[in-house]
Each structure stands twice: as C-alpha cells, then as structure tokens.
C-alpha cells in the first residue's frame, strides 16, 4: 500500500459549458491535512464532490488508497465507501430530519451490515463531545454546532482514511466555529485520518493544515507547505487573498494595504486565455494573456506555483509591496 490517502491526477469536471474544474492535480499523504482554499466559483467544492464520487469526473483520475474510483458504478464503489467520508457546510441541510441522531450516525455501518451499531454510535458521539443520550434526539432539537458534531460523528464512524470537510465551520458563529475547528484538530491527531479541508477562509486553516492548495477559476495556482504559503506566498492571487482578509487588530489592520483585484470575476464558461488570473492580476504582462503557465516546483516541501513571473528559485513579484522578492 502506498503512503498516499488520495491521489487526484489532472481532474476535470465540466457541467455542460461550465468548466468548474479544469486540470487539478493533488496528493494527500496518509494522516496529513491539506487545505483547499478558494473563493466562490473557484471549483473547490466540486473537487471535493468528485473525490467522494458524488460526481463522476469528466476527466482525469481519482485514487483512494491506491484504488482508482474515477468511473466506478454505485455498486462497485460500495467497498471503497468506508475509505472516505464528507462533512458539509450546512449541517441542517445534510441531516435527514425524519431520522434520529442515532440512526443518522449509525447509517454508514448499517449499509456495511455491521454489528453492535448502537455501541459504536455511542462511542462516536462521545468522541465528538456529545452525550450518548443525544442519539434519541432529532436533529432539529440541536444547535448548529451540535449538528455539525453529529455530521462529524457520522463521517468518522466507519474510520475512513480520508475525511473531506467542505466549509465545515462557515455557517457557524465565531465562538462555535472555534470549538468545531479545535475538535477536528483533536480528532485528526488522535485518529490519524487524512483530511482535505475545503474553505474560503485562509485564516481558519492556518493552525490545522500541513499543506495548502490555492484554487482560482477551476485550477490550482499554488500549493505547498503551510509555512511557505503563509510566509512566502509566490502567486499574486495567494498574496492578494492573504492581504485581503482583515485581521482582528485595529492598529495592524489599518497599517495594511489590501491588494484590490476589481470586482469582476471572469466566467467559468469562457475562462480567460493564458493565465486565468491575468484579467485581475495587478502585475500581468503580455505572456500571461496568451501562454498558460504550468505549475513548477519553486522551493522546499514541493512548493509549486503556476505563474510566469516567478522563476525556478521562487523569485518573483510581491503585489502586496509592489516589489520583487527572492524566496
């Protein structure tokens, strides 16, 4: 068995004319956490849905723990289901209101014809910080944070190798968000599953992710170790994302100058030629408009960037300061 929990090769997902995902390559080692970051319309959730095979990709391959699941039928997928689980953003919408919490959490095991389900349900609930009695309740009796804990309990009951968490805390209040993020971090450390954490919020993943991959309009523009992405972001879009998120400190925030990209996000039906970011990039040159930049390794830990303006040593512009920097 390889050391990879997930291997996505040149993934393509088109919905009619909409090119939601257009060539994404991503690997997650056993037990490590990769954050997939992007704004609305970047295709990040579609990548997640292809990985758990809620969608059948248009092209490319998805391998879960060495097994190619890209085009398996529902029946063929069944033995692979226990290897991967997903948690969605809106726990109210993803929990069946007609079932009890216990039925919801135990469902994956029932589909695998396991025994002693109620014991496992109680154990799984306890693990996410809920009392076992919650099993008798109905999801609508719970708060948003508790419901998200129920989703996590269900996702982890089959002991998957990979958890796809799609904006699991975006619908929650700040104080609740903190407790769910802490819970995910604890569970990941204790149980050792690999995790693809999909989010629009870079700050939420900083203390959770080992690696970060940044997506823009269906493609990855940069990926690498967390410390590199936060400390030495190479792609102008990553730099802009980091500069735009306001920090909760008035003195620091007012001293910053966010990079403004303009409001017009291009359409995924007719994405820009060359580098897809060139229409909003503050430092784009002629080459960017015509030639598609290939991802290249520019530094330690497999730090990759797809940008013409960054050289092989990682030297390139920093749109936050307006200067060129060496990495």
């Amino acid at each position, binding site marked *: 068995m390889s050391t990879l929990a997930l291997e996505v090769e040149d993934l393509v997902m088109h919905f009619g004319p909409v090119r939601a995902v257009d060539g994404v390559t991503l690997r997650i080692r056993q037990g490590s956490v990769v954050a997939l970051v992007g704004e609305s319309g970047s295709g990040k959730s579609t990548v997640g849905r292809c990985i758990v095979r809620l969608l059948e990709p248009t092209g490319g391959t998805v391998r879960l723990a060495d097994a190619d699941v890209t085009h398996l039928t529902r029946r063929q997928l069944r033995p692979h289901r226990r290897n991967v689980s997903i948690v969605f953003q809106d726990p109210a919408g993803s929990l069946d209101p007609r079932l009890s919490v216990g039925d919801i959490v135990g469902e994956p095991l029932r589909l695998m014809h396991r025994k002693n389900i109620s014991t496992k349900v109680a154990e799984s609930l306890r693990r996410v910080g809920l009392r076992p009695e919650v099993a008798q309740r109905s999801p609508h009796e719970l708060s948003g944070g508790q419901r998200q804990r129920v989703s996590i309990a269900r996702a982890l009951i089959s002991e998957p190798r990979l958890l796809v968490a799609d904006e699991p805390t975006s619908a929650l*209040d700040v104080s609740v968000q903190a407790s769910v993020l*802490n819970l995910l971090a604890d569970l990941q450390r204790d149980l050792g599953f690999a995790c693809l954490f999909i989010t629009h919020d870079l700050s939420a993943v900083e203390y959770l992710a080992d690696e970060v991959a940044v997506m823009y309009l269906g493609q990855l523009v940069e990926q690498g170790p967390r410390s590199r992405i936060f400390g030495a972001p190479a792609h102008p879009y990553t730099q802009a994302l980091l500069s735009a998120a306001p920090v909760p400190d008035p003195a620091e925030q007012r001293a910053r100058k966010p990079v*403004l990209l303009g*409001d017009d996000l291009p359409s995924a039906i007719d994405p820009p030629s060359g580098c897809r970011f060139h229409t909003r990039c503050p430092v784009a040159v002629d080459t960017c408009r015509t030639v598609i930049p290939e991802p290249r390794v520019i530094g330690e830990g497999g730090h990759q960037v797809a940008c013409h303006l960054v050289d092989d040593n990682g030297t390139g512009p920093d749109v936050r300061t307006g200067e060129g920097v060496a990495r």
Partner: protein
Amino acid sequence: MTAGITPGISTAPVLQVNDLSVTFRTEDGPVSAVDRVSFEVGDGEVLAVVGESGCGKSVTAMSLAGLLPRTATVDGSVRLDGVELIGADKRTLRTIRGREVAYIFQEPMTSLNPVFTVGHQIGEVLRTHIGLNRQAARDRSIELLKLVGIPSAERRISDYPHQLSGGMRQRVMIAMAVACDPKVLIADEPTTALDVTIQAGILDVLRELRERLGTSIVLITHDLGVVADLADRVAVMYAGRVVETAEVHELFAHPQHPYTAGLLGASPAAGRHAESHRLNEIPGLVPVLTQQPDACTFADRCPRAIDTCTATEPDLTPGHHRVACWNPVREPVEV
C-alpha cells in the same frame, strides 16, 4: 485612516438610542430580542455593533427606522438629530427613511429589483426624495456610481442587476443608499456575502463615504476583522444587551467583558495561531430569552462568573469604556 474628520462624541450625537427594547410575539410566547440598548453615534463616526447570531444586532438596526414587522413591540427612544422616531407617524418615517437614514443589507440581489436597470433604480430614489427631473437624476446617478467606484459608470447605468457581479451590486446598493446624502447609513453585514478580495473594496468605499461626505455609519457585523478595519467605536451585544462599548483600539487591546475577550480569542487570524495550534472556545450556547432575567445573561457560559452574576443584572459602567460586568477582565489579555 481617520484623517479629515475627528470622530467621536464631542459634538452632539446625530443618532441617540436610549433604552431601546424589542419583543416579538411568537407561537411559543414572547421572545425578548433587544433589551434596553443605549448608544449614540457622532457626526461622521463609524459605530460597529458586534455580536453573534441572535444577539439582537440586526433587530436593533431595523428598529432604528421602523422596519420591524407587526409582531414586534418596540419601547424606548431613537432620536435622529433630535427627532423621535419610535412611535412616529408613517409620513414622518417615510421622509426620514432614505433621506436621513439609509440602509444597506447583506444580500444586494434581493434588495435590487431585477426588472429595472441600475440607473432607473437610483434615479427613482432621487426623483422621489429630492424631486430631480429625469435628466438631472441620470446625471446624478452616474456621479454616484463613480463615487462608489464603478468603472465606466455611463455604460453601467443601463445594466440590469443580474449583469453585475456581487461586489458591483453591493456598490450599486451603496450608491442608492447615499443618493440623498443621508446623515446616517446603517450597514447590516454589508460584506458578509462577498469574497474577501471583493470585501476589501467595499470597505474602502464605506471609508471614502465617511471621509468625503461625513456620513455617520452604524456597521452591524459579526466579523471582528471588519470592525478593526473600519470602526471608530464598538458596541458588543450579547443576548439582546450591550455588554461593552469602547473606542476601537481600546476595545481590542483591553477587552473588559469576558464575552468580548472570548470572541477575540476565538477569531482566527492568519499568522497568529500557527504556534498555539488552538483557538479559544466559549462553551455553551446563546440563550433564547422569553424574558430578560435580573442577572447577567452570559453568566452560565462565563469563566469569570461569581455569585453576584446570577443574582443581579450588571449595568454599564459610566465613562468612555463602558462594561456591564460584575467581574470584568482588568489585566491585559493575550489574544
């Protein structure tokens, strides 16, 4: 970023809210949403009202010009330039809304009419409230679109809302809101539905408005980053009450209410948590209150609670940094 206008409460406040309470009739009995909230907003000042879902911040905002449904009972006083708005007749409210107080909401698409062009909708505001003719309204609309940073405004004025991006729509909403040069702009989560790279631009527009037109802004938000960016003063709400108010730098540096300190510790910020690997948690849930108890509503979640907290309601202390707490945080908190 506060150049030009000296913010603060040295001049007479433009908006003065005193003991504002809102109760809703529901099938399960009355629910208290806002409880004796008081604050004031100075000329050209940005006051942020911060809190989590259910704290009463949006209900407070809507009650400021009578936008609440009939199931709501409103008590207390809201004075705009000395004119009482609570209990005011419909005609008074109609002149004040849009002209003196304007609103922008979280979701611009639902507030814009999909079947009319942007120019028509801004023009309508100008024709109704200031009586401009068609040509003058058009010229002024173009000016307003430029003010809020919409490129090629002459062309964009003929666009329909669906032809605009989310960020552009929010800019149009702001243009409509400030069309009549209102004294107070109430911005209810104006950037929550937008991506961060778009949000930064909208926050700049609001800052510009304050600096160029001297508009006072009540900024309703859950995002402490947005507060840090734009606010002069902050009122923190919890379970219907204001629990702390202070000048923005003071509040972030020396939060005194344990809830404020907890919120600050729970907010992730890039570059701050990589070492600790942990965010602060606030255990428990926000209560839904049928009636306001004679106690601190945060007491059962509070790490600093003492006996008094569950027995007597704390009042806001007087002064510039006001806190409603029996056992406030006095030493600087690491957040």
